[in-house]
């Protein structure tokens, strides 16, 4: 489809975060976004190509495929970069396809195909806290509602290790704290709110009950809340009693949890939160809701469930597929293909040093220069998913939304490159020359 150089697109979908806000009005002039209305700073940074925490500072876009040769970058053709990537993945014993939470559904499906062909492990970037969540769902059952139902009905909201103002800023306005719905017409004024975090966040000024806990104390607080809701004997602190009372008085409640749970004993915390939700559900509707950050994190788990029947990280290396709930041990990796993520942003200095010492080749597919592309051996620039190429993405509650292209693309999409890579891997395995 040809994208006009000048256009006004109303009600576009924002690929900034997993909220996928669908009320964005975009004005395109001369083939670039001139103005985007109703978009938060996170979304604007993606659509306008700015740095996320420094608005009006442009991010450096990657223009041509690069290969590192004797420590220096060489500009190469796409085919040469794909061939080099295929060579790296074939030679590796334990290759890993990492990330994909910031990629569209098409790219995720193609990456799964690459992982199969390369006999690699596919590791979602947020596996550390999503895998225990899916395991707890399996144990206790599904408590689920769409964001619209939550907006319309929820009168009690708890944010556990989650700060929507940092991960998805318009969530609080469109679906949770301030949103007005069918049975919550007064919005903020008729909701009871609580938050649990190890830092004092912006939520502290907005919620009725803010519980700041010491790192590592979340589980004991949760156990106290469980004890208080069970009305069993046992020592319960005043703050846990207050939180338990708030939860028990709810008519429709939601416990949002975020990346914060991954800093504690994650499986135990999520088991406790799911157990608490199940107990509360005996009397009143209660939902346990992961506050995904990346725009299509949920799409990846839908794909894994649909294709493989498990939301855990699949490993195609051992002949037949095996699934892992534990996050990747970086010391085991010997080749890394990164799509839609920037793992070198959060890896510790020791882990990065180890990857360097073992000369683990890193291949990065990215629209912009980031830390991972700085450490990569092969860099493949791609178009921005959902801005320059049309994509399908799943909102944080699992609703699939179509993201039309807003701008013409000068680079291939990550889906195209991954499909090309899968074909190259398929040919190499069969000992054929790819045409």
């Amino acid at each position: 489809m040809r994208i006009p150089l000048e256009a006004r697109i109303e009600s576009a979908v924002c690929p900034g975060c997993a909220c996928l806000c669908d009320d964005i009005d975009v004005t395109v002039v001369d083939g670039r976004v001139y103005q985007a209305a109703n978009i938060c700073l996170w979304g604007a940074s993606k659509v306008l190509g700015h740095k996320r925490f420094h608005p009006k500072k442009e991010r450096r876009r990657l223009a041509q495929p690069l290969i590192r040769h004797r420590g220096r970058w060489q500009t190469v053709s796409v085919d040469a970069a794909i061939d080099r990537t295929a060579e790296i993945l074939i030679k590796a014993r334990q290759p890993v396809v990492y990330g994909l939470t910031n990629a569209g559904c098409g790219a995720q499906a193609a990456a799964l195909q690459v992982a199969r062909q390369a006999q690699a492990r596919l590791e979602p970037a947020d596996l550390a806290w999503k895998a225990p969540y899916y395991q707890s769902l399996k144990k206790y059952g599904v408590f689920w509602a769409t964001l619209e139902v939550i907006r319309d009905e929820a009168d009690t909201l708890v944010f556990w290790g989650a700060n929507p103002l940092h991960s998805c800023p318009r969530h609080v306005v469109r679906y949770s704290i301030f949103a007005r719905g069918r049975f919550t017409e007064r919005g903020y004024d008729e909701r009871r709110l609580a938050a649990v975090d190890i830092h004092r966040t912006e939520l502290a000024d907005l919620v009725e009950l803010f519980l700041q806990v010491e790192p590592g104390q979340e589980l004991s607080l949760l156990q106290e809340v469980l004890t208080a809701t069970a009305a069993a004997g046992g020592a319960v602190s005043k703050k846990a009693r207050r939180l338990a009372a708030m939860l028990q008085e709810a008519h429709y409640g939601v416990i949002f949890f975020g990346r914060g749970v991954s800093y504690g004993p994650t499986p135990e915390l999520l088991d406790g939160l799911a157990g608490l939700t199940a107990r509360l559900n005996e009397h009143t509707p209660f939902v346990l809701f992961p506050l995904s950050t990346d725009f299509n994190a949920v799409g990846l788990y839908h794909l894994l469930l649909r294709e493989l029947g498990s939301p855990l990280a699949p490993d195609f290396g051992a002949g037949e597929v095996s699934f892992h709930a534990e996050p990747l041990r970086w010391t085991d990796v010997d080749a890394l293909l990164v799509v839609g993520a920037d793992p070198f942003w959060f890896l510790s200095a020791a882990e990065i040093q180890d990857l360097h010492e073992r000369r683990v080749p890193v291949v990065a597919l990215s629209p912009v220069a980031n830390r991972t592309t700085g450490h990569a051996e092969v860099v493949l620039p791609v178009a921005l998913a959902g801005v320059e190429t049309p994509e399908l993405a799943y909102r944080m509650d699992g609703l699939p939304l179509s993201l039309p292209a807003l701008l013409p693309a000068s680079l291939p999409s990550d889906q195209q490159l991954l499909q090309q890579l899968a074909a190259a891997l398929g040919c190499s395995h069969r000992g054929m020359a790819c045409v």
Partner: protein
Amino acid sequence: MATLAEIREFLPNSDCGQCGLTCAEFAEFLQRHELAPEDCPVLHELDYAGFIEALREVLGEPQTKPAAGMAVDPKKCIGCGICVTLCEYHLGNCADVRLSKGPRDLEQVIFHIVNGLVVVVHQEHCTRLVQAAEKCSKCAQHCPTKAITLY
């Protein structure tokens, strides 16, 4: 006060950077009367003859600072839109905001979210100006980054 869209109709919109700003930023400065139409070098070209006069007409005379008002600090704002949702004027006059959406471009509202930042468009509708300064301060009170200052 002229809206940004009205001002931009008379700007080159080429983002040439000769003034050190993009045309959207230049329009914001014009709206606040911090720059004059003559400051755009491109408007002095023959192709744009008459645009400077037209812009002066659109902008009107700079208004004196109202007795009460508000300012949004663009360095602190994250564009979450809490102020847009909580504004009492919006609640009564903008159906989109009542449905937890953002207002459309041409709606006569106090706040718009443009390029990730909240901008004050029609301050004259604010309850604080129409009735009394102590009537409402929800936008500043609930701003998570304390970006809104009321005076």
